[in-house]
């Protein structure tokens, strides 16, 4: 997924802060990589998936993406690794696996 260019907050000097720290770029939260907060990542076992969509429905961060073929995949750019999808899955088709240093 293409990510919109956005100023990194760590590069903003105090003089450049917008009045009231108002955010003027709509939808800019989606470009924030919240995936790096994760300690465990969901791993999908497609052979067990029955396409019920409960993981997609329960994900608090809209980080489960419905695919054209009816399956679902985690969006690891945004997924914070809460594990709700793994718990809610009736077929245990998602397991949480510890993140390892790349």
């Amino acid at each position, binding site marked *: 997924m293409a990510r919109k260019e956005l100023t990194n*907050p760590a590069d903003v000097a*105090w003089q450049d802060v917008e*009045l009231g*720290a108002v955010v003027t770029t709509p939808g800019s939260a989606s470009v924030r990589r919240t995936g790096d907060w994760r300690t465990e990542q969901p791993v999908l076992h497609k052979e067990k998936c029955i396409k019920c969509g409960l993981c997609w429905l329960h994900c608090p961060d809209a980080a489960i993406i419905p695919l054209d073929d009816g399956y679902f995949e985690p969006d690891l750019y945004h997924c914070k690794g809460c594990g709700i999808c793994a718990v809610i899955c009736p077929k245990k088709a998602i397991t949480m696996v510890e993140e390892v240093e790349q």
Partner: protein
Amino acid sequence: MSKRVVLEASHAVAEAVKMADVDVVAAYPITPQTHIPERLAEMVANGELDAAYIPVESEHSAMSTVLGAAAVGARSFTTTAGQGLELMHEAVYVASSHRYPIVMAVCNRALSSPISIWCDHSDVMSCRDTGWIQVFCQNNQESFDMTLWAFRVGEDPGVMFPVMVNLDGFTLSHVTEPLMLPEQAEVDRFLPKYEYRLALRPEAPTSHGGFGLPEIYTEVKFSQEVALRASRTVLDKGWKEFADIFGREYKAVETYRADGAKTLLVTMGSLGETAKMVVDSKREKGEAVGHLNLRLWRPFPFADFREAVKGVDTLAVLDRCISFGGPGGPVCSELRAALYDVDNRPKVVGFIGGLGGREVDAETFAYMIDRGKEISEKGSEYLYEPVLVRGLETGTGVRG
């Protein structure tokens, strides 16, 4: 032409809010502020004021409601006192952080417990660091004038900060006295239409109140701090324009008979009027005494204050608030801090009185002048001296 009317300060504030043609008023009634929202509700109900009057279930909701109104660019007003300001507290910070020019009249009231509906400055002192512009009024005319001025300067593109107008509960809020009310055309000349560049609107979406990660929070807060201090030029410009149109002059630091004065009484709020009376009688006896009224509390007027006390030996400061376990009354502490790096600074002598509606009479101010001079010459082992405390020996106080 202005016309002379007789109004209590609460109704004077309501008149100013009406003449400012506010869009939204949200307030919860609390003594001694009640007459302000009551009068505004009446004005909206009878068609005198074309605004949304939003009744709310608490002061927290009152501030939250005007925050929402301000976010869409509405000229917004709220008002509270004492416990109400405390309940509102966390949302008070949001107004200044979002840079919404909300105007709030605070009818200063003591804090519980014991329950007291009467005046002191404990309520507003808890808001000292909330980032609002804060001014104090000495009488009903000033309550009207500062409310109008608050909209003018708060909404200025070079300011964009909320303004707290402090008027002493009962002493002003419920006291009726004559004042001049301007004509609407004059007010319109003073107060232009308000335009908020970042107002919430579908065609140009913005997000207000976002998440501030550690890598940006400091920069956001520092930009707010710089902007509040920089607002001073506009605050002065606003008073200048006010004087040009309405003929009444105001300054951040105002002195009375201070020429050649060696001792200045320092007050904020309505007690300044009593203090000035005492200065008159002392001057008649040939004493070099004057008065200093601190009108602007935030941003603190450092340069004006230092200039005003040049050549003065003693400042006798009356605080209407205890800073429990601290260095003295908040005003006294700040004046001391403002003078710390100044050579030949006056001795700042702190008194605390007028708590919970306790009268501070002329004799007490006269005593403060005499005692201040004495401490200035001989020194003192006390951080400050409370006045009029039964059981406390006169001339003693609180040690550090």
